[in-house]
């Protein structure tokens, strides 16, 4: 069970991480805030069942599942093998810098690979923790991550070439 103080500490420490994670995935600020709020509401409701040592992990798992539910409801699900459905060259005009290109190449990834990259790079989770969150084996996570980086690398190359030619 977590106390009110532990809950408030979790809000102060992890709310921005969860917002960043959700916003990176769905690119909608208002919806990301809604999901963060929903996560903490669930945490408060289930506080008697949550292990205080695993609050961050619990929050990210809940945020991931809540986000998938939101995407399903709003029909914004990115196909798992979605690169072919998205035009990689429809890039915002203001984004010809490395960060903009990386963001765009990340958006071109399937949802699962994108999630894994964010959890790995921004939140620093290891393969095992990511696997537990997303219900995958450790080797599956590693494979997904490798593929995601390969795809990102290729799309970065393509986007670079496109902007250099135009």
């Amino acid at each position, binding site marked *: 069970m977590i106390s*009110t*103080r532990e*809950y*408030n500490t979790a*809000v*102060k420490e992890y*709310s*921005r*991480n969860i*917002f*960043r994670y959700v*916003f990176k995935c769905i690119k909608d600020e208002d919806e990301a*805030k809604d999901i*963060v*709020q929903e996560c*903490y509401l669930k945490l*408060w409701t289930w506080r008697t069942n949550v292990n205080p040592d695993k609050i961050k992990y619990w929050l990210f798992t809940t945020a991931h599942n809540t986000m998938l539910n939101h995407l399903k409801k709003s029909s914004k699900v990115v196909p798992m093998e979605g690169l072919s459905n998205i035009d990689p060259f429809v890039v915002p005009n203001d984004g010809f810098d*490395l*960060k903009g290109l*990386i963001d765009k*190449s*990340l958006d071109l990834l399937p949802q699962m690979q994108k999630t894994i*990259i*964010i959890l790995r*790079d*921004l939140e620093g989770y290891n393969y095992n923790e990511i696997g537990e969150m997303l219900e995958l084996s450790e080797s599956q996570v590693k494979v997904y*991550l*490798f593929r*995601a*980086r*390969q795809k*990102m*690398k290729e799309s*970065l*190359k393509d986007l670079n070439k496109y902007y250099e030619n135009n």
Partner: protein
Amino acid sequence: MRTIDQSNYEEWIFEYYEGTLNAEEKAQVLDFVQMDSSYMEEFEAFAKTYLREPLPDKLPIESSLLRRENYFSINYVIASTLVIIVSGLLLVKKSEVKSEQVNITKHSVINELHQQGELSKEKRLPVQRLNYSNPTVKRVEPFVQFGINNEHIIISDTNHTSLPNVVRDLKEVQEVPKVNAYDSLSGEKATTTIAPEKITDKDAITAPKSRLERKAEKRKLKQIAKAKEKQRREREAQKLMKGNMPYVVPLDPNTF
């Protein structure tokens, strides 16, 4: 032992950035990518796929997520109740000590009244004994203030007041000397008589009094003490006048 080649160099580069290679394997990767510029491009392109982004500023919704902490937990309630009880007990004990001090002062005045013939009986107790029996009473100034010999105080048997602890001790005292403190002049030796009666528990009847009553008593006692002092001085002056000696105000020898 694994070796890096054209078929698996991407995996090696991936593992290099993931930090799963040892020093020897890392050196192998670096040697390989330096063989050809295309490999080096791949190597650098992989590095760009790692996200580095700072956390956003404080979320505007953060304050709405926080919950008010419950300060009135059961532990706080128990602790504060205990503190209140203990402080209450200390206060009660303090007030008991004060009331005992007032009672002792009162007894000294009763003694005076008896000497004037207003009280029929009297019983006495050595002051030292009183102080030992009740260690909380540390001051004996009231006795000095009222001109009573410091060696003794008097307990009345008129059921007006009593000191239970003291009276219990008095049972052991067979004979208690009587001191006519106010009849003797300063510098003279106090005369003593024997008080024949023994003290019984019947004398130990306490009458709890309110704070206001106690204050009024104190005030009254002070007034009586002042009046007695005045009377004593008048008596001294009269004694001097009986021998046809004019009362001369003593001069300060230092002026001559």
